[in-house]
């Protein structure tokens, strides 16, 4: 019996050899992968040992960390709930982070290379110095106005967005996407509760997690006429040039006529460009577009920022919240020649033209800022944990120059006329020069129209103060007037909050 006993001894050694080899595989070869796995709570425990920095705007803490008695030491809280949700995003325990919480994660968590000094100091003192603080460009008052204005809109619209930009710098003053969501349940340390809250938001038909201001595009309707007017001004037409209009226009290749929003709008055979913009004359712009050609319009739109798919809003020149590309769509036939029907409809912002609210605000900002489009950004400053050292301060820079100063000046006059005499009267502000353009875009034959307003406010000296875009999805009749009203409130809030500029 000794021979089999010896063999059993060998078998046991082989079994233990297998265990040993397998432990080597797990603890040596796969160790890094397992150590940094998303499912590994140890990473989180370590991360939550250190107080995460604040996200602030206008001296107000929008995201802060509270000490708890649980295993994860600090709980992230968002005192304003849903109001800033699409800007701040959230930093959950198990789910993926979003928003500023994601793009500035390293600095907020204190693991950024910039904060290496604090980490080295901690090694000697044994302290856990918190993460750095991120200061945003947002104006509390403008954000309040945008959030309340959208949420309490008179039409009961459920979905929409508002963006406000400082035209001189590109600093975002307000950014709201409606419906919004409360990020606090998502960062609960009870990961089951957090997951349930996330699932509920994810399944909501109105898509509260979507950032409509940056990543959702809709047909811009008549707001796109600003782009077509810019193309016209650069092609020998002035604001006083008479252009063909009329109550109805049927492009050569199409049986469906283009009409105006009301019979009272530009029934004359000819109107000036100024009048066409002020009244939002569809037939005039459709004919103008066909005359200018697809290439001129597409090129002008591209110069304003259409088709750019890599723009981000965060730190300047750094990673940020992604912005979806706006598109002009095709206006040509298969053979490359212009398709007059498509061109006519595209010229009034229909057909395949799609725009983000941010792009609308950038168009208005370029006009207000003398033709110079500043790179939009959200992060004003990165402050050390002790708030004494600044690691980054935004220095505004131009993104592009879509139009000349002269064209900008003409467009400004026309857009001011819209607010003073035309469709945008709701946006007027006493003592300030306000310009803008309304838009009403058909979404589908059986669905209500989207309402748009893009505009800007200048002070007495002509200095631009704010450029705004408000979009109300499927708002129906009166949508663009309601959008103009909300835009006016946002700009008034910016004026009332000079400290934010």
């Amino acid at each position, binding site marked *: *019996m000794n021979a089999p*006993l010896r063999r059993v001894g060998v078998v046991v050694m082989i079994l*233990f050899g297998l*265990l040993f080899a*397998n432990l080597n595989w797990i*603890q040596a070869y796969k*160790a890094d992968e397992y150590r940094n796995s998303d499912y590994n709570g140890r990473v989180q425990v370590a991360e939550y040992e250190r107080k995460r920095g604040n996200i602030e705007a206008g001296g107000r803490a929008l995201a802060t960390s509270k000490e708890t008695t649980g295993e994860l030491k600090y709980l992230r809280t968002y005192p304003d709930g849903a109001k800033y949700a699409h800007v701040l995003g959230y930093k959950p325990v198990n789910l993926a982070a979003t928003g500023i919480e994601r793009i500035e994660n390293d600095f907020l968590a204190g693991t950024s290379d910039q904060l290496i000094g604090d980490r080295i100091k901690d090694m000697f003192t044994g302290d856990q110095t918190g993460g750095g603080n991120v200061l945003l460009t947002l104006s509390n008052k403008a954000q309040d106005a945008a959030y309340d204005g959208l949420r309490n809109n008179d039409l009961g619209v459920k979905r929409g967005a508002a963006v406000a930009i400082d035209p001189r710098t590109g600093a975002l003053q307000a950014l709201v996407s409606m419906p919004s969501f409360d990020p606090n349940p998502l960062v609960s340390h009870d990961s089951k509760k957090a997951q349930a809250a996330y699932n509920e938001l994810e399944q909501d038909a109105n898509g509260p997690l979507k950032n409509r201001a940056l990543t959702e595009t809709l047909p811009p309707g008549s707001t796109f006429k600003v782009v077509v007017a810019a193309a016209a001004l650069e092609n020998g037409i002035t604001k006083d040039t008479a252009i063909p209009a009329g109550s109805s226009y049927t492009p050569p290749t199409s049986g469906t006529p283009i009409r105006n929003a009301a019979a009272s709008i530009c029934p004359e055979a000819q109107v000036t460009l100024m009048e066409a913009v002020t009244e939002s004359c569809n037939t005039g712009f459709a004919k103008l577009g066909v005359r200018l050609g697809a290439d001129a319009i597409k090129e002008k739109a591209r110069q304003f920022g259409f088709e750019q798919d890599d723009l981000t809003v965060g730190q300047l020149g750094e990673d940020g919240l992604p912005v979806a590309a706006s598109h002009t769509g095709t206006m040509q036939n298969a053979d490359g020649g212009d398709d007059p029907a498509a061109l006519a409809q595209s010229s009034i912002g229909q057909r395949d033209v799609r725009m983000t609210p941010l792009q609308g605000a950038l168009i208005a900002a370029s006009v207000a800022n003398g033709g110079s489009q500043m790179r939009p950004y959200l992060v004003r400053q990165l402050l050390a944990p002790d708030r004494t050292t600044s690691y980054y301060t935004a220095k505004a820079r131009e993104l592009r120059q879509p139009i000349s100063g002269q064209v900008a000046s003409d467009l400004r006059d026309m857009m001011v006329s819209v607010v003073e005499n035309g469709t945008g009267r709701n946006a007027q502000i006493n003592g300030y020069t306000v310009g803008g353009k309304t838009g009403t875009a058909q979404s589908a034959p059986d669905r209500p129209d989207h309402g748009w307003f893009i505009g800007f406010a200048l002070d007495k000296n002509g200095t631009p103060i704010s450029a705004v875009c408000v979009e109300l999805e499927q708002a129906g009749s009166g949508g663009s007037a309601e959008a103009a009203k909300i835009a006016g409130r946002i700009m008034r809030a910016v004026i009332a909050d000079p400290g934010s500029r």
Partner: protein
Amino acid sequence: MTAAATPAASPATTGEQPGVRLARSRRNAELSLLLLAMVLVAAYGATVEANMLDTVTPDFWVPAAALGAVFLGLHLVIRFLAPFADPALLPAVALLNGLGVGFLRRIDLGEALPPERETLAVFAGQGGRQLAWTLVSVILAAALLVIMRDHRSVSRYAYTLGLAGIVLVMIPAVLPGRFSEINGAKLWIKFGESFSIQPGEFAKLALLVFFAYYLVRKREVLSLASRRFLGIDFPRGRDLGPVVVVWLISLLVLIFEKDLGTSLLYFGMFVVTLYIATERVSWLLIGLVLFFGGAYLAYFLGSTVGGPFANFYLRAEIWLDPFADPHDKGYQLVQGLLALGTGGLFGAGPGGGQPGLLPEVRNDFIFAGIGEEIGLFGLSALLVVYLLIVERGLRAALAVRDSFGKLLAGGLAFTLGLQVFVIVGGISKLIPLTGQTTPFLSAGGSSLMANWLLIAVLLRVSDGARRPVTAGGGKAARPSAGPPEQLHGAPTEVIRP
């Protein structure tokens, strides 16, 4: 069965054994090793406190000293009642048991509120309970050494123990789930909420005594009567009966107690003792084919029919890809792997890990929890300690003179090794995870008691093996007075150098 063998009695029973070293009891070596083990346990406790409390309390040595006193008692029993027992067994087991108590106490510390940590009593929490269970288990082991002066005496109760073993195995399967099921495996007998015993742990020992006895009696017929097929000797059909019975029992365990590990344990135990008894490779082959065939069939039925096989199918699926459902089905295995991976080569240090994140860290996943803190190097050392115990047990089996003792010690040592393989392989995704205890480490009285009894038997057999034939009572030298009538003339062998 012994008639043929008696005339051919080997020299072992009649004279001086060639090749046997001069008999030395080696009890002082055992005592020194035991002290070293307790110093290690105390050092472990101090490191835990340094990492968790940022200070070492003046009482850090108390649990180690309490354990040391308990083991010292067993050492004294061995010194007087089994003076020639293997000197490495007790210190090796004491080290594992001590580290187990230390780690359980470390988990208690982690769960206690910070202000209470420094004053956690020695007998508080699970660590304290394990310390108490250790005391009970060691007393039982000592009692077994006192009662069982010769390992052959247990063969008298072989059939009783065999029956008891089968009953113990079957009780949880027959009981309704609320009395026997914990975490999906029906392995327990529950008495109220807090107290439950795992009869399978004891059944293991009882069944092995029966196997050893049965196989010693049947070994000729099993090893000689055979048919040759494909160059391998296969046994006759009618001799397969008991094997098939045990195979069916292990499959029933698999299906009704939903536990692959215990099933594998029983079956592996039986096949290996059968192989040792008959020296026939064919038994191993038949065993392997039956087991893997049965397991595959269960997997196949689980995927198609479901019912009682569904649990096994699910476990196999989790094993194949635990990360497919990391938050629910694969949660335990995934967390175990992450703990081991986080530990890496050197570990986070005793007290430096996060065992609180591991499910079942006191039982099934204790090896992963310890592994996070002591790393690959520490776990390798633990595996070597286990291997040492198993190989010392096999060594006793090689050295002992009677067939029953060889089978008993060989089977027990192999079973211990197989159990370590099943649970450590399970939590490290080498084989599908099954709910086995990690011998001497896991919290729980049943496992600790059964394994200490197992060690007592190994100590007794090794004492018999190393005891000089002419000295110290010379039980082997007086066959006429040998207690087990059926076995005193059983075939014996000379130890091969």
